[in-house]
């Protein structure tokens, strides 16, 4: 039971990393992407390969994952960010669908549909460490970094672009570079989450990196509160523990858990967006449409 809870907590921390980094794009920079799971996947495969073939060191796995996910996102974002917001969402959707096929086909790197198995558990400088403290530490570091950026000039630049791109440009801000940096940081963070996920599960396959997963992370951000520091963490914990909680309810037959979960998700999201449009942690006045 405690092992189960620890595993759940580790997953919550990993998904919280995904949610806070996606929120950095959506909430601060106003860039909507439904491809966050792609960079989660890139990080997971990269981290798994490092652990399998180089060293089972968590730091090395995370660093390589961050570099690959962040670097690739930069290459993709620079051309894609030239289009207007709505089109970027469409571009990210295309990327998500394409990446899933690539993940399934690039068997040498990803193990194809079967995935990568036998990934060694995480070590740090030669010592075995738990995935839970590791994930919590990574989450804390990323939250600190985001808090620092949000309060500094970079955060202000992103928020100004989100609120009025042309006015930000008229003040001398290179919008394309600022957006690309925001995307690279967020996707590097997703890569770290992926590496931790691989080390924790000791097995990864393409099913964890689907469009559904991207949408789930987006839901975590929106439910918790876009543009807030801790909202996405709340959203991640909530949406992850919901299915676990449902599984314990005796009156739901195990075969129906999935369907019930979908209904509750949908209902909760709809009600939330009506009564707290800015999310659980968000400022009440904010999600409302303005005159």
């Amino acid at each position, binding site marked *: 039971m405690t092992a189960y809870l620890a595993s759940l907590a580790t997953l919550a921390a990993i998904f919280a990393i995904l949610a806070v980094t996606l929120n950095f794009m959506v909430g601060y920079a106003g860039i909507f992407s439904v491809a966050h799971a792609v960079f989660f996947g890139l990080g997971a495969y990269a981290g798994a390969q490092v652990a399998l073939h180089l060293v089972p060191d968590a730091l090395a796995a995370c660093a390589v994952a961050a570099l690959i996910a962040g670097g690739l996102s930069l290459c993709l974002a620079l051309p894609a960010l030239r289009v207007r917001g709505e089109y970027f969402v469409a571009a990210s959707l295309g990327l998500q669908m394409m990446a899933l096929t690539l993940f399934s086909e690039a068997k040498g790197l990803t193990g194809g549909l079967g995935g990568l198995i036998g990934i060694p558990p995480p070590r740090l400088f030669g010592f075995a460490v738990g995935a839970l403290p590791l994930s919590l530490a990574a989450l804390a570091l990323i939250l600190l970094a985001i808090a620092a950026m949000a309060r500094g000039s970079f955060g202000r630049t992103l928020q100004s672009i989100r609120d009025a791109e*042309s006015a930000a440009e008229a*003040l*001398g*801000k290179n*919008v394309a570079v600022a957006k690309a940096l925001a995307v690279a940081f967020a996707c590097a963070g997703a890569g770290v989450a992926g590496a931790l996920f691989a080390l924790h599960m000791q097995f990864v396959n393409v099913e964890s990196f689907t469009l559904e997963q991207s949408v789930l992370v987006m839901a975590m951000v929106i439910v918790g509160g876009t543009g807030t520091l801790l909202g996405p963490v709340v959203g991640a914990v909530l949406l992850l523990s919901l299915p676990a909680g449902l599984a314990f309810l005796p009156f739901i037959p195990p075969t129906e858990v999935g369907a019930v979960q979908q209904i509750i998700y949908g209902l909760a999201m709809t009600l939330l967006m009506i009564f707290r449009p800015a999310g659980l942690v968000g400022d009440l006045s904010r999600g409302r449409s303005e005159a």
Partner: protein
Amino acid sequence: MNRPASMDPPLRCEGLARSFGGVQAVAGVSLALPAGQVTALVGPNGAGKTTVFNLITGNLRADAGVALLRGQSILGLKPWQVARRGVARSFQDLRLFTHMSVRDNVLAATERSAWFWQPGTGRRAREAAAEAALEATGLATLATARAVDLAYAERKFLSMARILAAQAEIWLLDEPASGLDLASRLRFGQLLKDARARGVAICLIEHNLDVVAELADRIAFLDQGRVLAEGEPQAILRDPQLAAIYFGDRPQEVA
């Protein structure tokens, strides 16, 4: 009120032109903005005033013409590049950073670089510039309010505070005083006079001819994309032909 124009106006446009489909919005506009002078850009709605700004700042591509900033061409540059060369502009529809605090709106105007590192000025100097801009625009007590929560006149002044904080040599102001009450208009006038005294070259789009008469050193009268007349305010404002164009078909414009 008139100050001697410096020998070489820091911003000079010649023959700027731009059409949209069949509409010739700007048809060969030449304009010089001398340092330490307020040049009012006056003309009926749709005359092409805002488009002239958009051509100078790189928001729109010019079909023809030149725009020289201290002798160097700025046509073809991106808006952020023009801004970094010292041209600040305001927007007719303000475009405030709605969900940011008043102070952050102004601080953002002091920061150019996209990254953490802000070359040139130190953080203290930028914060001081922001505070000074808030003080000058009367927004100091509202520094923590969000832009979206401000009243109409306060929003106009926040737009001006951003311009002030940007510390540019050239200001392009698109109807910054429209809809202001008398007290606010006086405060706005003082902002402009102070900037003029510091040597800022100001171009002011303004419909209220009282404001123009009070603040402008020169007037350029624009109609259907052309400068019909340019010169001393008194001469332009008394010209019966221009008055006929200005008041003729749209008398309701002058509030």
